């Protein structure tokens, strides 16, 4: 199989290394421009199974705010982001919500849980 050069910007950390990758199909031959070893993992992931953390909000009843922010505990496959958002939109939590509460377990069968990012006290509850 022929080798080709592809450019990536690693999003693992805020440094955002510009990576020059030599790839053969879905295999990485080598990468240049990476400041750490996570650059290699990132390129491998982008070629075979690109994933992203998803953060959004979910409706809350009786809370100090009408929404609670939520996040995927680990990144989910990129093509499933909008399916997950649709799933989360169906939910309404009841206050109080606690940081780390599981909002959806094993979302879309990905094995990834969706968790609450903060406490949302109930409206009457002193925060």
């Amino acid at each position, binding site marked *: 199989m022929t080798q080709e050069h592809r450019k990536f*910007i690693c*999003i693992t*950390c*805020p440094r955002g290394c510009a990576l020059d990758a030599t790839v053969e199909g879905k295999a990485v031959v080598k990468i240049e421009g990476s400041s750490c070893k996570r650059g290699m993992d990132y390129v491998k992931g982008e070629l075979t199974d690109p994933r992203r*953390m998803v953060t959004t909000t979910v409706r809350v009843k009786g809370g100090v705010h009408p929404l609670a922010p939520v996040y995927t505990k680990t990144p989910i496959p990129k093509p499933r982001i909008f399916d997950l958002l649709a799933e989360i939109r169906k939910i309404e939590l009841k206050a109080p919500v606690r*940081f780390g509460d599981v909002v959806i377990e094993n979302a879309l069968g990905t094995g990834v849980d969706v968790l609450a990012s903060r406490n949302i006290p109930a409206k009457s509850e002193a925060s």
Partner: protein
Amino acid sequence: MLKAKYDVVVIGAGPAGLAAAIEAKKTGAQDVLVVERAQELGGILQQCIHNGFGLQIFKRDMPGPAYAQHFIDELAGLHIDTLLDAMVLNVTSERHVHATSRGSGFVELDGRALVLSMGCRERTRAQIALPGTRPAGVYTAGTAQRFVNIEGFMPGKRFVILGSGDIGMIMARRLVFEGAKVERVLEIMPFLTGLTRNYVQCLMDFDIPLQLNHTVKRILGNNRVEAIESVQIDKQRQPIAGTEEIIPCDTLLLSVGLIPENELSRKAGVSLDPVTGGPFVDERMQTSVPGIFAAGNVVHVYDLVDWVTEAGLLCGRNAAQYAIRERKLHGRRVGIKAGNNVRYIVPHVLDKESLAESAQRLQMRVTMPIEEPVLIEVMNGEERVARKTELYVRPGEMVNIDIPQSAYDAVQRASELSVRVVRR
């Protein structure tokens, strides 16, 4: 019940203020008070629901509210007083604080030391003098972020975003998640002003076009935004005739920069740096007024909250030491100036003896991007005091350099230090 006198009074409960209060208490300050304008602690982190926080400090990728929650929980366990929903009206150079709140009414109290951590606010349409009509549908990106992420409503359906700052790019993705169409992100500069990773994961991932060297020429629409007219600009930042384009949209978001919020600092007589818009500070984050310290975006606008927390910790520790021991300056200080391709540098002044205790970190932003390896050099005239290489420098990404303890002697000889960024 509020006390009349505190060891340390912290104004603003965002990441800088929370860290400062926690560290002040841990350093030995008995009574610590945090005064906060909002009804809850955490500051702007509460609306920054995206991830990317905590990678430096916690080695974990956390959403903004989770990052805030960590410090809110820690603060709650330390018997630190809080005054929420409270507006500080005045601060004097003698550290007398006037505030008003719904719960406590008008209060006056004193701090043996004061921490200014009011953060920053967004530039608005008025500050960039955007021509056109004045319809509904023009918001700063942060205002839209609050609407969407905390209050639960969408400010529009079809967006154009002016400015490639991080908040603008993050909001572009967020709006797409909530079903909106983002037509375009326009950036007047020839480079991205936010982090590159946000360009990848917020714009590229969702095919949102970014146009550099472009700005909004005028806003169209009477009651509501109906379109904007974009235009390409040349190297002198002048519009290029014939490049105009009408982009239909119902909402324009502005992500055009942040300004440190220093009205209270001014009232307290604190000297401000015209470049950063924040107080001049020394390596302990003390301002020009003894006993008044400052940390976070009120000093200069950071790119990462982790560095804000670190500044807050440093500030809180020194504020507590000042309050309980009235720690004095050694007096022999050296100014640090921004040299070639350095827009500003913090701290502005360094106690020469501070290097006897530890290495001292300088933080800066560059004026122009250099996409090749550069040397960052701290100079005393022609003598090099510290150096570091970076693979590239960009205005959107803060640069740090440490002056090592081994530079102690060189710093003693210096009458002024300057920092420059040069191609290798």
